[in-house]
């Protein structure tokens, strides 16, 4: 499934990547500090593997990136790559941005939502609705065109076309996860946040997922994937960030080599 741009105001052209930046982000739940002093700049087109044990803060970080959660302090922003603007296909969003052609252009949260997708621990699906109804609902909410074709294509690619009319309640764990992933990809996100996306997938599902991910990467999609276990898709990673106790302990950086950090993970799993 290739990523198509949502057919709305052309704020983000098809080949543009989305960047993500965290500036001194902290998140507290009462007296428990989930994230401490997170400063991270993710450039468009990167594939970041977010590593760490359970409770290290990976899910919290992803939820903040998805704009589901507000940080207790600090700032998170989704950026449009400056290269896209230099290509002349876009107008900068403000005079200030125009004055700095090399700086990245931040996107307002309301707009960013159209281009961000997340797969989380929960399926985010309505059990009582059919697979087709679930996908149609979200296609409508994202304001997509040609909904019927898109939904049909989505179901076909994830192998659930035959069960389109069945309630999600009747699906196995693996099927639900596949549908959840299909739901996330429906609106063609340019920034993909994945929280243990392979959980529950069988071998076929995993193969489909890896293939889909590879294709998205070719299309320039930025990916941040969290995992605490061995996963084939990690081979595609261009960067590894290790979270410990809410802090960034190791970061291979945008131009570094993620393999040493990944290797350490593999030896433990």
């Amino acid at each position, binding site marked *: 499934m290739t990523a198509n741009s949502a057919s709305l105001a052309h704020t983000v052209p098809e080949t543009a990547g989305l960047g993500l930046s965290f500036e001194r982000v902290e998140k507290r739940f009462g007296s428990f500090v989930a994230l401490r002093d997170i400063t991270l700049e993710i450039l468009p087109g990167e594939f970041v593997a977010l590593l760490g044990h359970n409770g290290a803060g990976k899910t919290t970080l992803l*939820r903040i990136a998805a704009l589901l959660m*507000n940080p207790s302090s600090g700032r998170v922003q989704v950026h449009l790559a400056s290269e896209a603007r230099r290509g002349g296909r876009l107008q900068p969003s403000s005079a200030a941005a125009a004055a700095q052609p090399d700086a990245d252009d931040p996107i307002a949260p*309301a707009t960013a939502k159209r281009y961000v997708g*997340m797969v989380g621990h929960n399926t*985010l*699906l*309505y*059990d009582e609705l059919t697979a087709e109804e679930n996908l149609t*609902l979200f296609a409508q*909410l994202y304001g997509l065109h040609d909904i019927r074709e898109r939904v049909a294509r989505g179901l076909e690619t994830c192998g659930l076309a035959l069960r389109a009319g069945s309630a999600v309640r009747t699906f196995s764990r693996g099927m639900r996860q596949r549908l959840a992933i299909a739901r996330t990809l429906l609106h063609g996100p340019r920034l993909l946040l994945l929280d243990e996306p392979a959980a529950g997938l069988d071998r076929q599902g995993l193969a489909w997922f890896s293939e889909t991910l590879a294709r998205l990467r070719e299309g320039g999609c930025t990916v941040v994937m969290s995992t605490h276990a061995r996963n084939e898709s990690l081979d595609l990673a261009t960067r590894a960030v290790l979270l410990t106790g809410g802090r960034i302990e190791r970061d291979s950086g945008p131009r570094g080599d993620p393999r040493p950090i990944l290797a350490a993970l593999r030896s433990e799993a």
Partner: protein
Amino acid sequence: MSTARAAAILLTKELRLEFRTRELLNTTIIFAMVVVVLFSFAFNPTPEESRRYGPGLLWIAFLFAGSLMLHPSFAREQSNQTLDALRMAPVSTFAILLGKMLANFIFLSLAEVVLVPVFAVLYNVSLAGVIGRLILVLVLGTLGLVITGTVFSAVSAHARMRELLLPLLLLPILAPLLIAAVEATVSLLADEPVLDRTWTTFLAGFDIVFLSASWLLCDFLLEE
């Protein structure tokens, strides 16, 4: 996407979900009927008393049934965290709230459509000639109930003892609505039926005040 359009899509979703299981609707109607019947056992009213106290009973039945029915509004979204999916979508928070308010309004109205004739029969109250105006009062009262109830359903969704908390929060706030709705209904069922302008305007005012407050504060309701 405009708030109205998003709310319409979400309303369709809520209706589809409810009509597939119909658990909420059935329970609400039966519960309200039980309240109506128990009243006659507890008070054994004469026909004259029925006419005087009937409207009060009717609205209490709606209030109790409504406040129980409103709880699942947001609680339902918790099993698969579907609320996350709605919040990530490019729709305004108010659209999410509005979709649920409209759905709750429809469900409660359906319950009322069943209950009002039952009530009229059981208590020998004639509704001829006042149906149109009665519907107006019912609509305004139900709106107030679902507007505040949906907001408080969101407030209590994260609290402990949320099933008990929702009526606790809701019923004191609705005291003025109860008074207004009952008085307006009483004057419609009197020997010379009259649509009490004062109370009807009060109901409309109540609805506007709380709908505006919901619109202003909706982002705070769903944030994390």
